[in-house]
């Protein structure tokens, strides 16, 4: 008998999640698991609910007035809406990187240290160590180590986005959510981010929203296709891109939509 690789644990799992903005249904009865130490890509046309779903995973949707949900989202088997789980703690465990690189108008060092400082870490040496570790983890250290005190806004777009990844990594989350992290970058910067995602997989569980199907194909282990607020199909990325089960997935990945 060959070695059967054990099927990975589900780090996060949505069960029949429905989310409304006011009376408008944004996503409808989504049940989707995010396996540990894998990259799960969420694809679909604009407005299909993939970003909304992603933002539900660390309750960023709570910030938008008028949203309410039914169904559950589990993190390590516990509901993220559980009273015992503070939303601030949730976001420390489930970090997020946004589409537009959004460094604070502070120094490179302060950007990475931000999450640690708001978390109450004051020790200078510990801060420095964590900042260096995160910047190394985001493959940015060598480019910025001599100018940590300079403004983060002086970095190139690709560097800024890696800085944002470093910033998210600094608080040592368990899950990293990425909302189109490379959509505003040139191909070389994109390749660096994608390479980074490959490396981060061993430490983190990653969910990534992308408009770029080739990117989903390149970086992810599993792909979920969203359409009009519904999860049409989720499966191994190779299967989604060579032999999807659903007609709508087929039409989307082959470019036959509207």
């Amino acid at each position, binding site marked *: 008998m060959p070695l059967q690789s054990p099927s990975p644990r589900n780090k996060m799992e949505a069960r029949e999640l429905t989310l409304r903005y006011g009376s408008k249904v944004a996503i409808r009865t989504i049940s989707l698991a995010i396996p540990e130490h894998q990259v799960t890509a969420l694809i679909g046309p604009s407005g299909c609910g993939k970003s909304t779903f992603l933002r539900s995973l*660390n309750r*960023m949707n709570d*910030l938008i*007035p008028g949203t309410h949900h039914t169904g559950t989202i589990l993190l390590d088997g516990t509901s993220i809406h559980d009273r015992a789980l503070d939303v*601030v*703690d949730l*976001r*420390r465990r489930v*970090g*997020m990187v*946004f589409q*537009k690189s*959004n460094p*604070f*108008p*502070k*120094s490179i*060092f*302060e950007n990475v*240290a*931000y*999450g640690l*400082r*708001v*978390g109450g870490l004051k020790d200078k040496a510990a801060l420095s160590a964590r900042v260096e570790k995160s910047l190394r983890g985001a493959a940015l250290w060598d480019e910025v180590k001599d100018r940590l*005190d*300079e*403004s983060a*806004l*002086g970095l190139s777009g690709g560097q800024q986005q890696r800085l*944002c990844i470093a*910033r*998210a990594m600094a*608080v040592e989350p368990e899950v990293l959510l990425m909302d189109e992290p490379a959509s505003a970058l040139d191909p070389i910067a994109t390749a660096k981010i994608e390479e980074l995602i490959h490396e981060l997989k061993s430490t983190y569980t990653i969910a990534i929203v992308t408009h770029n199907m080739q990117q989903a194909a390149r970086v992810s282990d599993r792909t979920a296709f969203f359409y009009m607020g519904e999860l049409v199909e989720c499966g191994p990325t190779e299967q989604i891109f060579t032999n999807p089960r659903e007609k709508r997935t087929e039409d989307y990945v082959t470019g036959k939509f509207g």
Partner: protein
Amino acid sequence: MKHTTRKAVGLALTSLTGLAAFVIVAVIAIILLDVVRGGAANVSWAFLTQPPTDGMMGGGIFPAIFGTAALTLLMTLAVMPVGVLTALYLHEYAPPDSRMARWVRVAVANLAGVPSVVFGLFGLGFFILFVGKGLDRALGYEEMHWAQPGILWAALTLAVLTLPVVIVSTEEALRAVPLDHRTASLALGATQSQTLVRVVLPGALPGILTGAVLAISRGAGEVAPILFTGAAYFLPDLPTHLNSQFMHLGYHTYVLATQSPDVEATRPLLYATVLVLLMLTFALNLVAVIIRSRTRRKAASAGH
């Protein structure tokens, strides 16, 4: 044919708008030139540092300069915290459909439309006759102590007058802080108040200072609100207490222009006073603009 019409219309619009802009600039230039030409010769060190003499027919204007500066400072100290906190409530804490916030906004808009002399009367009625009298009674003063015109009441009246400016510009500054920065902060596990203190306020600081600049330059030149609340006709002594009366450049100008027994004789003094008032307002603005651009630069390149 059509082409030439189009050209003509374009030319006409360009010259019309250009002319309008030119008229404004020209008017300002004429005023400034006139003030500088008439006043520059009379602004001397003595004029700036001496009190008026000879029934205000001679001497300097130092008490008025000091009074104006003290008044503006007090006003700023009063209006900035209240204005900024109100704006913070409106923009950061009030729910978007809050009825309370809507009323506050309506009130602020109305406040901005009230003529300044009404503020003067309001200051007299509310601060002096109501608050001042109440204080005197509560603190057991036999004679009038707080219930009389004084620099504090004048400053507070001006603060109410400039409140809308501060609120509106602060709200504008808060709005200008990118949503991205807030969401990034929250996504890193910061609480809302941490986000406010560490991200939103530093980001809005240049805009808030702009509000201060606008409030100061508005308040420093206003005369009507202080007429009944603390400005003195002639007072060679400097204000020493919060309930002291004070001289004021704007009021002094008004007095020189309207109350002089010999208009020809006071004209040079009048010119010089107006010049000083303009320069002071100008200097205040300049200082604030410098502070603002500094914080902005610092924000952009902030070290740790």
